[in-house]
């Protein structure tokens, strides 16, 4: 795992090209211009219905941008946004009923109340993460809805609180066109404000908290203050959206603020792309207009037809559940959201036009790895259990851990793979076992097990073919007893009797949960568990790590024993070159993801690649 971690520390993003930045700025200008044109069209020639819908789109967009601040920037989960909208809406309904509550005072009071509530939710969030925070905000949601319901009952406003139509100086805000125009200005102002905040230091601090809170704290980011700031700011923005909602719909009723309502905002920022304001805006437009679009589609379908009828009679449920379907679809097939995907598609198209020739030429220039190696004296193919040919491993964004490795494990032998921390040893082993898709690793070249290429198979598939890896860390199941381990690993659950001869230490511990074993015992158990599977190829990752020399010796003796007794070939990855060379028949030295030397232990003993670059620096 160390190798993987080392790679992740490298920044994944490529340095931005000046060309790309100019293009991005043009794109932003085009977007603003397009938005301005759409707004002007809506205000001048838009129908009353279009204006009505766009009012909701604008209000929900403000809320979505607030939520995006918290989730997309600072990386904090919240399903409390319906509660915050409710808080803003009720505050406005109550304040606007007083003598001093003239527009925009209630909006400002709502923002302050929202900010205070944000601070209150933010406090537990200092300790809680992920789903615990989600649960806390779920609690906030239900408690708020309950309080609102009690308030309506106690005041006798069972059908909701009325909100008087606002006016601002000479402007009559009851006129929908005027109010929508004000909403447009507010939204534009908010977008401008936040893009500028994100561009400078606060944006970077929030990003660092999102990427790694521990790391951010370690390099001196005051995580507490900035996390709270994100909670307060985003909650204030969402509460303002609630206040505008109250003015726009003129009635505030508890039925509006359901969990579905809260989820619909999550849908907005997920389908647009959680990382950007444009994403939140796109999501708000799509999610808010979708029910109206669906409704008009249903109205236009010929009545009496089977599907049209069915759609018509279920339109209420379907528009309600539509965002569930959209959400699930996006998470499965487009988890990064619509806007980043569109941006990438645009870049890909323009890049393709430019470098179509160059990439092809590069691909052809690369020699096939096996050809180069054929000349060396090698054991005949039948005697080879594992052959790696031109093996490369790349993780996630493109960091390369291993490059063009050729390696052979002959039958019955112990082969050692030596190298420093971060040299790529673990990645080689993982390439042999295969990766799960979620690990986002790409394997290049060939992994031949008994002559059959298994590159790209999953760990489940390779372990069925007889490859067993004892990982460096997390090598036992803490809550399972020793006996459970052996039973789990043994084919058909039958553990061979010889286990007690080879691993006598374990016999006294059969009923003990592995979490209570000592480091040496865990290591022994891990090797025993691998042996019980009767592997075709045993991969061991840093078995000596953290063990006293005497325990290391004992463990290595066991490995030699199972190698000789059961003729199990072993590929041993080690930092401790001396220990590994004492039992290996052949060894490879890995440096920065490439093989820099190989040979028998006696050949390698004085090899400068090992003594200089590697042993010389190791204690």
């Amino acid at each position: 795992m160390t190798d993987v971690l080392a790679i992740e520390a490298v920044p994944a993003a490529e340095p931005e090209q000046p060309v790309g930045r100019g293009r991005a700025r043009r794109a932003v200008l085009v977007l603003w211009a397009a938005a301005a044109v759409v707004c002007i069209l809506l205000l001048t020639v838009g129908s009353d219905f279009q204006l009505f819908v766009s009012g909701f789109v604008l209000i929900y967009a403000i809320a979505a941008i607030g939520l995006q601040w918290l989730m997309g920037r600072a990386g904090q989960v919240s399903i409390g946004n319906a509660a915050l909208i409710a808080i803003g809406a009720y505050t406005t309904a109550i304040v606007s009923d007083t003598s001093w509550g003239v527009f925009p005072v209630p909006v400002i009071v709502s923002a302050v109340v929202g900010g205070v509530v944000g601070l209150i939710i933010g406090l537990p969030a200092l300790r809680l993460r992920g789903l615990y925070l989600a649960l806390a905000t779920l609690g906030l949601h239900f408690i708020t809805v309950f309080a609102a319901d009690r308030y309506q009952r106690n005041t006798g406003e069972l059908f909701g609180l009325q909100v008087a139509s606002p006016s601002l100086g000479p402007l009559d805000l009851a006129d929908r066109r005027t109010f929508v125009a004000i909403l447009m200005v507010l939204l534009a102002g908010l977008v401008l404000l936040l893009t500028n905040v994100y561009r400078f230091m606060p944006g970077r601090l929030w990003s660092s908290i999102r990427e790694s809170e521990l790391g951010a704290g370690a390099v001196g980011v005051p995580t507490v203050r900035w996390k709270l700031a994100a909670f307060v700011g985003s909650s204030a923005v969402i509460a303002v959206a609630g206040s505008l909602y109250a003015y726009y719909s003129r009635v505030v009723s508890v039925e509006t603020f359901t969990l579905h309502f809260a989820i619909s905002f999550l849908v907005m920022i997920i389908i647009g792309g959680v990382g950007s304001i444009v994403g939140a805006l796109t999501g708000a437009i799509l999610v808010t207009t979708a029910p109206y679009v669906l409704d008009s589609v249903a109205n236009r379908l010929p009545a009496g037809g089977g599907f049209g009828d069915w759609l018509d009679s279920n339109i209420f449920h379907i528009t309600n559940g539509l965002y569930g379907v959209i959400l699930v679809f996006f998470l499965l097939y487009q988890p990064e959201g619509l806007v980043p995907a569109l941006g990438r598609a645009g870049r890909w198209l323009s890049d393709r036009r430019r470098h179509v020739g160059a990439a092809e030429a590069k691909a052809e220039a690369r020699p096939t790895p096996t050809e180069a190696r054929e000349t060396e004296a090698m054991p005949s193919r039948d005697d080879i259990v594992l052959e790696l040919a031109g093996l490369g491993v790349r993780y996630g964004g493109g960091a390369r851990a291993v490059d063009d490795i050729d390696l052979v494990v002959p039958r019955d032998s112990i082969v050692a793979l030596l190298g420093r921390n971060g040299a790529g040893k673990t990645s080689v082993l993982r390439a042999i076992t295969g990766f799960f898709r979620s690990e986002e690793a790409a394997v290049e070249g060939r992994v031949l097990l008994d002559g059959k290429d298994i590159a790209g198979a999953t760990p489940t598939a390779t372990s069925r073919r007889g490859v067993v890896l004892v990982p460096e860390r997390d090598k036992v199941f803490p809550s399972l007893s020793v006996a459970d381990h052996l039973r789990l690993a043994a084919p058909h659950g039958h553990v061979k009797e010889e286990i007690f001869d080879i691993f006598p230490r374990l016999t006294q511990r059969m009923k003990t949960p592995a979490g209570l074993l000592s480091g040496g015992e865990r290591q022994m158990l891990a090797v025993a568990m691998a042996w019980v599977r009767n592997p075709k190829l045993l991969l061991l990752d840093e078995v000596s790590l953290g063990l006293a020399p005497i325990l290391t010796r004992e463990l290595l003796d066991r490995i030699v024993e199972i190698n000789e007794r059961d003729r199990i070939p072993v590929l041993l990855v080690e930092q401790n070159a001396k220990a590994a060379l004492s039992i290996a028949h052949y060894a490879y030295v890995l440096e920065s993801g490439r093989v820099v030397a190989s040979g028998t232990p006696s050949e390698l003993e004085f090899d400068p690649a090992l003594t200089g670059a590697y042993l010389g620096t190791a204690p």
Partner: protein
Amino acid sequence: MSQQLADVLVGTVVLASIYALVGIGIVILFRSTAVVNFAQGAFMVAGAYLFYWGLEDVGLSWPLALLLSMSAMAVFGALCYVTMFRRLVGFDPFILVIATLGLGVVIQTVVAVIWGSSVRIMPGVFSLAPIDLPGNLRITPSALFGVVAAVVLIAALDLSMLRTRVGVRMRAVADRTLLASFVGVNVHLVSASAWAISSVCAGVAGAAFALQHELNPLSINALGLVAFPAVLLGGMDSIRGALVGGLLMALIQNLVTTYIGGIWSDVSAYVVLLAILLVRPSGIFGSPTLARL
């Protein structure tokens, strides 16, 4: 014992058995797949409607209708994993939370399209007359059915988790997913089973609740969400915690209902939730590292 106290005690046990069923489903799923299923309430709704459908429309006897509901829920749960959550393995926990929220909305929509959203009364499977027990205790047969179903199902799960190889495999995947795959455990198969078991638990709980009250998608769904504070009280990753947490939460809610008013019942659960999150997020039995997820 006063009648009121006796009714509180019986009500606690009846509600606790529902929480225990749902909670065990949540814990098993969380431990073996790291998914916290916010759609658990929707799964309860689905199980209850399937039970209703078997009784009313197919005309089965109640054991067969229950079996039908359980098998359908098992298949459905496994399908949820195969079609959805298998693709999301290893994603951020909050993406998983949102995915389950979306799944819940989809299930509720499908149920509403098929059966409508009106409240229905379950067919009279058991007699309505309460059974009198010593000490003023009395329990209706349908409530007794819920308690017995919970005890049987939980005992069966407990035995199989401890004594069978399938159970050992599930615990192995729960402990260390990657390592389990290295030693030949079919992680996808085990995860699909966890989904199936969790769905069956939720479905039976939903059916039992519908028998005791009515077939109301809203209230069943709300109950599924209140199960989270209950599980959290015990500890998200502890089976024992799910049982004890369910019992405590049921006691709190029954006391609140009896002495303050039924309307305060659900909100008291969420107040308890916030209190636990502030004081001891890992719950009574949960491992302390859990809250850092």
